[in-house]
């Protein structure tokens, strides 16, 4: 009698586990990403920087928002504006879910990029963009954390210089988990598609 009872209990438990798993899988289906899936391969969103309003911010301040992190600098007249413009067009195409998305533009040129310059710069592209600045060490640590790289090029003679930098765009979900990686040449359709999925993950029904 006793073993049969425990066998039935075990059976019920297994069914329960199976049910939990099924419902769990329904809650979190494996999305059909079009961009490069980096889930589990890059660390969570975490930094201590200063935003374009001069306020100290951390990665945790962006919990609840899908974030798109991009390293660049304001004296970059071509590739950075191209990328920020592309993200602006993508967010406009995304529509209302874009309210839950923030572009994090991290300066790799702390010497020239003040919060005020960053504020004017990011807002010229998109109101959902946040400019982030920090010390050389802070920015270097953040870039290293995401295996990003940047190099200050030699002075052109008049104090002007360029900064070569990784062109990747890092996508984090609303919990701050690294999910996707895109290059500036990624198609806008793919970015819009994946942002629809990313903004609906864990969204309340």
């Amino acid at each position, binding site marked *: 009698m006793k073993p049969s009872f425990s066998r039935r209990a075990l059976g019920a438990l297994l069914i329960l586990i199976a049910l939990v798993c099924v419902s769990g899988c329904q809650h979190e289906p494996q999305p059909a990403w079009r961009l490069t899936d980096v889930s589990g391969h890059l660390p969570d969103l975490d930094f201590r920087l200063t935003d374009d309003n001069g306020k100290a911010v951390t990665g945790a301040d962006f919990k609840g928002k899908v974030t798109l992190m991009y390293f*660049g600098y*304001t*004296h*970059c*007249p*071509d*590739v*950075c*504006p*191209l990328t*920020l*413009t592309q993200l*602006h*067009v993508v967010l406009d195409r995304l529509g209302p879910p874009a309210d839950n998305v923030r572009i994090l533009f991290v300066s790799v040129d702390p010497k020239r990029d003040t919060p005020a*310059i960053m504020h*004017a*710069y990011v807002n*010229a*592209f*998109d109101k959902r963009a946040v400019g982030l600045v920090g010390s050389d060490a802070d920015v270097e640590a953040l870039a290293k954390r995401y295996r990003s*790289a940047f190099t200050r*090029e030699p002075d*052109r003679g*008049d104090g*002007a210089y*360029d900064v*070569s*930098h*990784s*062109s*990747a765009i890092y996508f984090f979900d609303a919990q701050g988990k690294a999910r996707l990686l895109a*290059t*500036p*040449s990624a198609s806008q359709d793919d970015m819009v598609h994946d942002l629809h999925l990313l903004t609906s993950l864990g969204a309340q029904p």
Partner: protein
Amino acid sequence: MIFRSLVAAMLLFTGAVHAADAPTVKASDGWLRVLPGNLPAGGYVSFENVSDRTVSIVGASSADYADAMVHRSSTDGGMGRMEMVDSVPLPPKGKLAFSPGGYHVMLMGAKHPVKAGDKIVVTFALSDGEKLPVTFLARPANATGPTD
């Protein structure tokens, strides 16, 4: 004799008119991206070499900016970088566009505030000694091209 000189003069004259009317390179759809403050702006334009020999763009200048340089961006190997370009060859009867993420003219040190809607003349120096003035329409920072 008089007739022949006249014909020669006429030929020379038409030749001169022809040269003035038909430049070797045509430019269209010039626009530049206005960035806040006095940040450098990228300028974009489409060139068409209508001659049957290669003509190169060897320089740029604008009365409205302290400095203008021809640059090329690349994102090879995942790194975004810029390089100065001394000469951009336009193949015979060929077209080449300066466009975001590739060739562009970098305009630095605006001598007066430039705002969206303004028209700026950038003069390109060509390898055949010609000067090619091109009108660039100033566009907002997040513009995607010369028109919406």
